[in-house]
């Protein structure tokens, strides 16, 4: 048995060494900001600070040594649109779109001069006024970051900081002060429901698994976040991996399991790396492993990387994948609670569900219920993307409305040129390939598991893709159908063949070959696939089609009867053209065209050769005069 860890002492010691340093600069190290060059900014900051003879501390030591600036990385801070992000504590300044050349000003003005660099602060796009503190920025101000809380504030690679923030205290309680039954009851009382999309009561799942008598049980953390347009799980694993591990530990204690798997998508290399490091650190610290917190319980935790199959998000397929088989679902019952991994009782929970668990154990189920609605307590994270000003990772209580999310937090809808368009909202796609569309009339509906049901959409795992009026809804349906058709595992015929035929029918419609009969056949087939498929993938695959048909039938009809795409997106139905009366002959389009399809003399109207044009739309983006149509 490794030496027993004293959480309180580790936390106190960390806080003391932290308190000896006046300022902390946090550079966002989430996937989004890294892609935008945040690692270069980190290096530049370090160099610049040292050039000013400031003592830079990169890792807090085990003794109080002091220094001028504590420079660290964080996981995703959420505001990906404005990245790379840099925050300064304790001033709480948030600098957005930081470039390496801005580093000099940050050091000289803020770290030496004690004042904010005004030009780097976030400014309201409408009024132009700057926000000095990060928590005043509308994007953050209207959120309730309970699950994401420390994600973005702490160094995800330092277990001591997690402990200093109260981390692993819930796990300690679960192992030393609570009985499994008690944990299950507490989670059940909180009303926590599966955040991965299913919405199944977590407490019930655990109670059922605890009731099974078996010499071996497993916990699986489902981090196979396959929904296109969703990155909540990635961000939590990158930003606060210990929170997820703590949730896994509590789940294991609750069902009396001693082995756990984290099944992560291989598309998330940074999340894999962070979770592996966090596991190793937790083991080294004596938190994971043998005799957890001095109890007689052991926990062994493995990481398994997925291999690129969306269907593995389905729990029985995920189990098959861990067992080294093709990831194909099997009929339920038996449910994994009875017969899961290697035939043993298994609890499978989503990353976010497990990330919520420590919060409930620490603060009590009653507290957890203060946010959210009666049927869906607590908060939910969403990946807000698409045609919206502020894209990023957000967290709001269940029951918040789309209007709050899109217009207050998201800052409104943008047109194809990236400008705010007050009337631009067309729909929001929620729930990924299993979900559907919500439209104008749903903007004020509370978002929770139950109230969304009648709309034909689902909360799903939390992908919210905002679409402006230039989006073709038939194309959206086609996009999701292509996705599910691709990802269908092929086990059952209605899903394998049905999605293929549905895709072919949608293909006909967007290529101008649609007929009324084909539309009717599409609807019929959609119902058949829904009823006839085995697993969730097939059962929900027709949802995007049915949902777009329900709210945007006229768009389908325009494609079929008038051979016209109302949004001007379907290339087969569009002819690229430069409007001579609007074209100023500036040459911006000509220079940007990647295939050289545009010709014309300076200051006279240009032309597009439709035979050469690949309809990529670059010219229309480059044109300042809206002279290009049909691409």
């Amino acid at each position, binding site marked *: 048995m490794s030496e027993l860890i004293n959480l309180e002492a580790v936390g106190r010691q960390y806080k003391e060494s932290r308190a000896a340093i006046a300022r902390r600069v946090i550079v966002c190290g989430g*996937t*989004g900001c*890294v*892609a*935008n060059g945040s690692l270069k900014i980190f290096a530049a900051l370090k160099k610049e600070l040292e050039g000013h003879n400031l003592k830079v501390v990169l890792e807090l030591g085990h003794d109080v040594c002091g220094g001028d600036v504590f420079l660290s990385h964080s996981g995703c801070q959420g505001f*990906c*649109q404005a*990245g790379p992000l840099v925050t300064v504590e304790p001033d709480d300044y948030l600098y957005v779109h930081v470039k390496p050349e801005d580093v000099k000003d940050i050091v000289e003005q803020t770290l030496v001069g004690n004042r904010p660099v005004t030009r780097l602060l976030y400014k309201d796009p409408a009024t132009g006024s700057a926000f000095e503190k990060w928590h005043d920025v509308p994007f953050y101000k209207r959120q309730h970051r309970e699950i994401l809380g420390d994600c973005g504030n702490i160094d995800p690679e330092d277990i001591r900081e997690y402990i200093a923030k109260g981390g692993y205290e819930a796990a300690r309680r679960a192992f030393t002060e609570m009985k499994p039954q008690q944990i299950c009851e507490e989670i059940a009382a909180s009303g926590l429901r599966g955040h991965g999309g299913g919405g199944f009561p977590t407490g019930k799942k655990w109670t059922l698994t605890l009731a099974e008598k078996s010499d071996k049980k497993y916990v699986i953390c489902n981090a196979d*976040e*396959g*929904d*296109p*347009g*969703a*990155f909540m799980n990635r961000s939590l694993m990158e930003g606060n991996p210990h929170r997820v591990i703590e949730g896994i530990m509590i789940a294991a204690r609750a069902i009396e399991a001693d082995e756990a798997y984290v099944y992560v*998508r291989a*598309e*998330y*290399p940074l999340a894999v790396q962070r979770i592996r490091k966090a596991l190793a650190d937790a083991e080294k610290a004596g938190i994971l492993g043998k005799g957890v917190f001095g109890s007689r319980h052991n926990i062994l935790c493995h990481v*398994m*990387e*997925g*291999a*690129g*199959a*969306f269907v593995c998000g389905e729990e029985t397929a995920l189990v098959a*994948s*861990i*067992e*080294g*088989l*093709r*990831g194909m679902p099997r009929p339920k019952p038996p449910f994994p609670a009875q017969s899961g991994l290697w035939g043993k009782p298994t609890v499978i929970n989503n990353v976010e569900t497990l990330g919520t668990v420590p919060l409930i154990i620490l603060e009590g189920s009653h507290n957890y219920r203060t946010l959210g609605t009666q049927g869906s307590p607590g908060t939910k994270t969403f*990946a807000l*993307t*698409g*045609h919206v000003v502020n*894209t*990023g*990772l957000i967290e709001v209580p269940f029951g918040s409305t789309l209007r709050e999310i899109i217009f207050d937090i998201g800052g409104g809808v943008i047109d194809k040129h990236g400008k705010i368009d007050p009337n631009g909202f067309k729909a929001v*796609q929620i729930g990924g390939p299993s979900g559907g569309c919500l439209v104008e009339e749903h903007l004020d509906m509370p978002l929770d598991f139950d109230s969304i049901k009648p709309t034909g959409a689902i909360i799903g795992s939390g*992908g919210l*893709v905002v*679409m402006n009026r230039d*989006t073709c809804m038939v194309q*959206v349906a086609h*996009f*999701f159908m292509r996705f599910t058709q*691709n*990802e269908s*595992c092929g086990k059952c015929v209605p899903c394998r063949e049905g999605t293929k035929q549905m895709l072919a029918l949608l293909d006909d419609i967007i290529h101008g070959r649609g007929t009324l009969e084909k539309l009717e056949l599409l609807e019929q087939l959609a119902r058949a696939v829904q009823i006839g498929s085995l697993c969730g993938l097939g059962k929900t695959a027709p949802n995007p089609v049915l949902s777009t048909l329900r709210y945007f039938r006229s768009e389908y009809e325009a494609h079929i009867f008038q051979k016209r795409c109302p949004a001007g997106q379907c290339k087969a139905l569009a002819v690229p053209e430069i409007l001579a009366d609007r074209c100023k002959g500036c040459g911006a389009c000509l220079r*940007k065209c*990647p*295939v050289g399809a545009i010709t014309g003399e300076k200051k006279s109207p240009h032309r597009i050769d439709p035979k050469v044009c*690949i*309809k*990529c*739309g*670059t010219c229309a*983006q480059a044109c300042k005069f809206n002279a290009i149509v049909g691409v």
Partner: protein
Amino acid sequence: MGNTQTTEPTDGLRKFEKVCQIIDKYNRDPSKLIPILQEVQHEYRYLPEQVQSYIATSLGLSSARVFGVASFYAHFALEPKGRYVIHVCDGTACHVKGSDGLKEALFDLLKLSDSKKTTNDMLFTLETVSCLGACGLAPVMTINDEVHGQMTPAKAVELVKAIMEREQGK
């Protein structure tokens, strides 16, 4: 192991040495087939048929079972890939923000298509992936795992052209 390879030149033996190490690392456990294939692919950049058969024999599985798994998961490549693997993200957010334009501009530049994914000189492989989880920066593409966000067709072409020039200069 080696006995089955006696008719092969010593090169052949050495070829499987690394595979053997990987299989041993996982204690020849058939349930670890996926991580084994992942590591082997990391080594060879794809899963040659011979190697798949070798793994099957070593784990006591049928070749069909190994091929079944290798062909099921999108990450396993059954054909060699180019030196630069470009992934154009086609997740929902990227799609609505114009990832098709990126793909087509690159198809055009590299003379590739949905059925021909690797250039003849084995320099580039272009694939679409369903979601890279960097939706905040849509549209996104990666070149050998390096993420490039907020792309336009012109920027994508520029990036790839820069690589082509660098490679020609070598």
